């Protein structure tokens, strides 16, 4: 077993700032949705809007980083068999001390289910959120791009559904990240300091 930098400085910065922004946007977003009252509607809107723009900036940086470093390959889906093996492991094997079906390497640091989950997050949940969110934000300008017939309700509810999906992802992600490492909080430490075992 060798130790290597699994998560570069940029990746760690990206991960934690993104998580902070997403949590902030979940908190303010559900206030805007009317679920509870915390900061007040206007402050919630303002924080949500600023966080959205920062996150968009961060995504652009991350997009650039992933393309130039080739790290985007980490998210290419694995074959169906190895994904099935992971499903079997999480649903049965993990209870009975079975061996992890996937041996990770620096070049393939995510297990097949993880790759798929992150891909879905990046390709479906996030785009739906930011597309519907930008539409929501620029509601006043819809007629400029010929969208004046679009019901606000549709945009709002799409945005809300995607937010629920993000929240559900966050719950599952935190659980798996904290509890599935070999050593206690192993994954958390990797994401903090960057070093992981190969």
């Amino acid at each position, binding site marked *: 077993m060798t130790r290597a930098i699994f998560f570069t400085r940029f990746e760690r910065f990206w991960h934690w700032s993104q998580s902070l922004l997403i949590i902030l946007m979940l908190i303010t977003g559900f206030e805007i949705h009317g679920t509870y009252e915390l900061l007040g509607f206007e402050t919630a809107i303002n924080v949500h809007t600023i966080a959205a723009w920062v996150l968009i900036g961060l995504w652009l940086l991350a997009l650039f980083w992933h393309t130039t470093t080739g790290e985007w390959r980490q998210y290419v889906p694995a074959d169906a068999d190895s994904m099935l093996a992971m499903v079997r492991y999480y649903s049965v094997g993990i209870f009975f001390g079975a061996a992890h079906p996937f041996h990770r390497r620096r070049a393939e640091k995510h297990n097949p289910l993880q790759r798929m989950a992150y891909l879905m997050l990046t390709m479906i949940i996030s785009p739906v959120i930011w597309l519907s969110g930008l539409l929501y934000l620029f509601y006043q300008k819809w007629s400029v791009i010929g969208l004046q017939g679009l019901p606000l*309700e549709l945009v709002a509810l799409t945005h809300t559904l995607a937010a629920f999906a993000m929240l559900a992802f966050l719950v599952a992600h935190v659980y798996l990240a904290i509890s599935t490492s070999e050593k206690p909080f192993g994954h958390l430490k990797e994401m903090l300091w960057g070093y992981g075992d190969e």
Partner: protein
Amino acid sequence: MYLPMSVSARLLVFAAGMVVFSLCQAVTDSELSGSTADHTKFDELKQVFKTGPEVTEACLSCHTEAAKQLHQTKHWKWRLKHPDTGEILGKRDVINSFCGSIETNYARCTSCHIGYGWKDKSFDFTSETNVDCLVCHDTTGSYKKFPTGAGHPPYEDKPFPPKSKKIWKAPDLAHVAQNVGKTSRQTCGACHFYGGGGDGVKHGDLDSSMTDPKKSLDVHLGTDGLNFTCSTCHRTDGHDVAGSRYTTVAKDTHGIDVPGRDDKNRATCESCHGNRPHDADVNDKNNDHTDKVACATCHIPTYAKGGKPTKTWWDWSTAGRKTADGKHIKTKDEQGYVTYVTKKGSFEWGENLIPEYAWYAGNIRYTQLDEKIDPSSIVGINSFEGSYSDSDARIWPFKVMRGRQAYDKGNNTLVMSHLFGKDDAAYWKSFDWNKAIKAAMASRGADYSGEYGFVETTYHWPLAHMVAPKEQALGCGDCHSRDGRLQNLPGFYMPGRDSNYWVDLIGWLAVLGTLGGVTLHGLGRIFFNRKRRDGDD
């Protein structure tokens, strides 16, 4: 006498005038009136006037076109044809829920007409000397029309109410005439603050507290601020005053009025403030909202806030009660506001009221005399169009006047009634609704079945005054919340207020399902882990 002059002579006079003007300004800047005429110096006004029309005759000897201008206005005609609906509106024709209609009640109602002598149908609308100049242009505060004088002031001191100790003084007409000037909050307010039979009764955003208001009451009129008069916004062009509740501009897309794109109406907020008047914040939503939310909606958070209450309920059906020995009854609430009076029925009043809100496109309609009503429901004295999808409509604040009033039970129509007069048919004389309705309807030439009842009505008054300083404007959360001010306004999705049952159900099921799933998963792992360890032991 005006004499034609050569161009050079005119220039000379102009230059001389400029020099004199500059000198005067330097010397007496604070004393110089804005007017170019001092009416105390006019021989025409140095005489003993016995009546109002005599004063008007003197006015017209110089202001030759003034009466002709006024003859064209709503202030004179009390009648207009609505350009969109074609309905004939105006005080002469509409039915209201306050003091009823002017039909057969002329001499009482026309104490707020800008004319003299409209005591019955035969009033001569073409008479120039029947125009009352003084009621709008008085600056002395001593000129008041007598309540039952058909527009005339008292020409000798006399009491009102009759036989009471409250004396209405006859004004010194020559003194008033020599001190005419621009209209003021006081002159406009003499009628507009007292509509519906008393101070603040009708509008809710106009009452005597607006004569001399602080800017905290009205940011435009406030004497400690901008000190506007009514005509600063309700500008006149040939005596035709801009701004009307009959033809409200619910959305002024002209923006700021500058020469070249002037819609000749400064009586909208947008005429001065434009369509994006707010400083841009992180969000620019205040400016974005001007397409769907009228300025008044956020900037008039409460009305009837100057210390004068407005009438909110008027039940005519309880009128006519007397004591056992036949005396009129009058009851008052703790603050001294009348809650019952034999002549008029029961009232409720309100102060610092929160407006009601509705989509409003400005095209207001009034329920006509021959229009069928449904007496089992609440009847709208007026109604209007507007919805979220109507690009001409915006959310407006309203005072909604409620009450009960007489209607024709046989024909299912609203009625007019004869209240004021010395004849037996007058309700305030005999307290017989049947006679009163019959007399007014006959005078109107309208059909009356002979059977009356009482129906509940609403009357919507768009609010546009008592604009609060901006610090007191509503915030986002006042409407964007589940139980906010717009909680009952239908037809559109509003963030913070609205949600979809299924989206929320599916969403929370997914989130709580995931949470439950990982919890069970984790507990299962702990359980089997322990079992395995026990087995190993």
